[in-house]
Each structure stands twice: as C-alpha cells, then as structure tokens.
C-alpha cells in the first residue's frame, strides 16, 4: 500500500491533487460527474469584491498542446459566493476548500480575503496576484516584489489561515517575488499562473481574443512551470504548490520531485472532465512503478 497523503500548510490532504482555480467553477459541475471528495482539495473560481462579467468574447483560442483564455475573472462577487456558492458546495464537498482571491487594489484583497477566511469551509486562501487578463490590478501586483509584499502584508493581518500566494510566470525573476512574499508573511507559494500569449485570425487579420492577449495553459507550459517550481522551491522554505500543464500522474510526481508539496490541475479538467479523478486513481500505480512508497518522501527530491 502506497501513501499518497501530503500536508499543505498544516492541513493534511488525502492526495496532492488540486483542481486549479478557474477550471473547476465552484465544484458542482464536476460533482455531477464524479464524487469530488476524492480530491485533495480544489481551488474555487477566482473571487473578487464586486461581481464581474469579465472580458468580452471570444475568450478562448486554441494553441499547440494548450489554449489561451481571457475570461477576466468572471465571478458573482464575494458576498454571493458566500451566500450562494459555498452552501451549494457544502452539499457536494466535505473537505476544506481553497478560496482563490483576486483584486484591483490592496483594499480589495483585504476585503475579500477577510470575508472568505471567516468561512469555516475555507481551509486555505490562494491570493492571486497574477491574473494576466484584467487591467489595473491582478498581475501588476505579482510582477513587482514590493507590490507583492504590500498585498501579502495587508491580507496577513486579516487571518491566521494559510495564505498561499499565486505567482505569475510573466516576470524576469520569479524567485525574488516568491522571496518577497515569504518575507511578508506568506505560508505558501503557488505557481505558475498562465503565460501571456496571443493568436490571430488569419481571415480577419485580427486577434482571436476580444481582449487581444490571453493566458496560455496546457501541456505545452509544463516544462516552464516545472523549471519555476524547481527554482522557487529551492529558494524559499515555505511549501510550493506546483501547476502548469499537469495532465498525468507522472506529471504530478515530476512536479513534486521538483519541489512541489501539492499539485494543481488546470486546463486538463476542461478537455478531460474526469482528468483529476483519473490522475488520483493512477497515482498509486505510477508510484509503485517508480518505487515510491510515500509521496511526502519525494518532495524536492531533484534538488
């Protein structure tokens, strides 16, 4: 019998598999397909202070081994998430959930984090300072170490629950930003958010996406993500949650060997609705294949 359990910021997970924010809604679309309690946990749709429609459509473009999205943080706002989405989620998911928070100012982040942290269902807060698809906020906090630290220090004051800061790969030096977040009081780092890209419609001679640019995700970005997880986990002493193109149990193990304590699954959920469940089912077999008895033992093994 192999042991798939890991501990993320003091909370034990049955396995390290976590569907990533924005690819799993608030859980119940997938709960119609399978019992989502098999998951380690999941990170729910990025939530902001006020309701947002997001960007105009088209928001999706295909790429080699991946896709671009420019959804732009569509969500019903934190109050409705608490009054409507979380009660619905409680009916289908009985584990602590990861709340994903976005904002356009430090005050936005503080407001939304404080409200979500007060919810018993919420185990961790994943603070997204890396959304590439909104203007005047989001990623701008995640591309500068000082601004990243400002957000972390401010949200730190609102809760003792674990704060995991989600970083952008669209930077020159992701390690310096991760360190700034650690120094400011973060309990963990998650990476990577999507890589900024674009595609054109050759007939129209214009960008496919209404937002012009979007975030690239899918198997194509896995090597980039793995490299960044390796670098960041080697430089900080807090846990790292790895994500970016993970689509198999082998990818999960590779991310963990690179230094991830847990692993998020993103785009794979969209093209293979059973992907996260299937990866969890495959994990024990793949562990045996590589002589792994406990996933805890392999975290950072490549360093």
């Amino acid at each position, binding site marked *: 019998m192999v042991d798939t359990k890991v501990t993320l910021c003091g909370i034990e997970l049955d396995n390290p598999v976590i569907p990533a924010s924005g690819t799993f809604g608030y859980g119940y*679309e997938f709960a119609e397909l399978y019992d989502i309690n098999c998951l380690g946990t999941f990170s729910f749709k990025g939530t902001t202070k006020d309701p947002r429609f997001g960007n105009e459509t088209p*928001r999706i473009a*295909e790429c080699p081994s991946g*896709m671009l999205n420019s*959804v732009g943080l569509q969500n019903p706002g934190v109050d409705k998430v608490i009054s409507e989405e979380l009660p619905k989620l409680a009916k289908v998911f009985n584990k602590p959930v990861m709340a994903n928070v976005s904002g356009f100012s430090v005050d936005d982040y503080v407001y939304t984090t404080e409200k979500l942290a007060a919810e018993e269902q919420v185990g961790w807060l994943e603070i997204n300072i890396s959304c590439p698809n909104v203007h005047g906020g989001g990623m701008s906090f995640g591309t500068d170490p000082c601004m990243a630290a400002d957000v972390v220090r401010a949200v730190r004051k609102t809760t003792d629950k674990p704060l995991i800061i989600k970083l952008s790969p669209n930077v020159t030096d992701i390690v310096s930003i991760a360190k700034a977040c650690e120094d400011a009081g973060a309990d963990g780092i998650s990476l990577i958010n999507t890589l900024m890209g674009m595609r054109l419609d050759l007939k129209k001679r214009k960008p496919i996406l209404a937002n012009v640019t979007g975030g690239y995700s899918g198997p194509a970005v896995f090597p980039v993500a793995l490299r960044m997880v390796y670098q960041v986990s080697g430089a900080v002493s807090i846990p790292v949650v790895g994500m970016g193109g993970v689509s198999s149990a082998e990818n999960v193990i590779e991310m963990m060997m690179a230094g991830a304590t847990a692993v998020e699954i993103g785009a794979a959920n969209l093209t293979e609705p059973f992907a996260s469940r299937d990866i969890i089912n495959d994990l024990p077999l793949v562990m045996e294949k590589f002589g792994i008895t406990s996933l805890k033992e392999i975290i950072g093994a490549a360093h």
Partner: protein
Amino acid sequence: MKQGIFSIKENTQLTPTTWRMVLAGDTSAVTAPGQFINIRLDGHFLRRPVSVNDVKHAEPYTGEGLGTGTDEGAVTIIYKVLGQGTEEMTKMPAGTKLDVLTGLGNGYDLSDAGDRPLLIGGGVGIPPLYLAAKELLKDAKSRGTDREVTVILGFNSSDEIYYADEFEELGCRVAVATADGSVGVKGFVTDAFRALASEEGFTHFYTCGPEPMLKAVYEEVFKGAGISGQMSFEERMGCGFGACMGCSCRTVTGYKRICKDGPVLRTEEILW
C-alpha cells in the same frame, strides 16, 4: 453529460464544404434537439463542439422520449470544414474511434411549439433543426393533433444546399432562400419569411445560424412580427460543459454560459 467512445459508421460529403458523420455509441445523454457533442481529435487540445443533427437510440426504444437508449445508439452530426480539425475529420474512415462528450447544452424546448411552428436555419446552423422538426412531428402524431412545421433554409448559393429534401421527407413545408438567387427566394431567410408572412399564424419559432442571421431574425420575426422563439448561439468554447466561463454572455436574466445554460436562448432574454 456523458463521456464515451464512439465508432464512425458513416462519413459522407453533402456539399463542397459540408459533411455528415454518423457515430455509434451510447446516446443516452442526448435528451433534446439543439444539444451538441464535443469531439476529441488527435493532435488538437480543445474538443470540437458540433450540434446533434439526429439521434437513434438503442432498441428496444421505449418511446418515452429522448434519452432512454443504451450503448448501441447512433448520433448524426453535420459539420462544415472550417479549419484543420474539421478538415482532418473528413478523412476519417468508417470504424475510426472517437472520444466524445454527449448531452451538452440545454437544447430546444418543444413544449411551446404550438400547431404552426416555424424553423429557420442558415448554413451550418441547419442541422439541429432537423431533429427538432422530427420530434415536433412525432409529438403531434403521438398526441393525435394537427401540426404544420414550416422550415426556412438559407444558403449562399445552390451548390451549398443540403437537407431541403430530408425536411420535405419528414413532412415539413420547406422554403429555401439563396443569397445569389440561384434557388428559391433571392436573399436571406428574412426575405423568405416576408414572402410567407401573408400566411399568418406562426405559433413559435426555432432558429440556428450565423449571428448576423440570428440578429436579423430577431428583428424581423420577434420584434417585427411579434412571434416568440428560441435561438441557438455559437461561441468559441473551452470546455463545453460549464466549467471555464469561456463562452459567457449577458442576458436579461443575468450572465449565461452558451455551452451549459445555452446554446438555446429565448427571444425574451436576449441582449445584443
């Protein structure tokens, strides 16, 4: 929604750019005309969403409505060659296995059809109306009521015409419009509608087609003639089952996902 492996039974060309594919497999998740399936193609990351043109559930079929089949049914799709993915589909021989998500989207609600429903289809938007017409006529027959189904089909030119005969064989009254006037009414589906408008009394309409056509139909048939209807929309999709928010639109009743809350919207809720 169900995920299943389907086997291609037939893949035939209908027009220079339009093909029909019959896929055998578990059709039980297909519960309404206007729904779509999402097909995985090797070498492409995103699945290809295609509307259901027809479905034949496994025998014995209980006649209790759609959705009672088991794993020996068949679903028919009609697809237009638009890019590399659909181009590759044309080359797939019978027997090819495809990974397909079925039963996606809300589909048309046929309960409001009345005794003189009007179906309006343009180009690649025509296929889902075939199953709608079939179900509308079957429903009327099973209830022993009279129902006249009128179908307006719009194409650019005569070489693009398909399924006009199939609708007639079902027992529909068919009017064709071509933009170049080579067959039927010269112009768009709305021109064909005006030609029919002297015969008033359409009870409800169902439509699918390119967005400019939908907008014209909305103005002419809903706003102009005062007939309520249901319109099927298209949008670039990520997942096709409501998870990614890639295909959202604004409606009178709030934000809706074309893939999950649509693709069919009612005229009363549409915001252009």
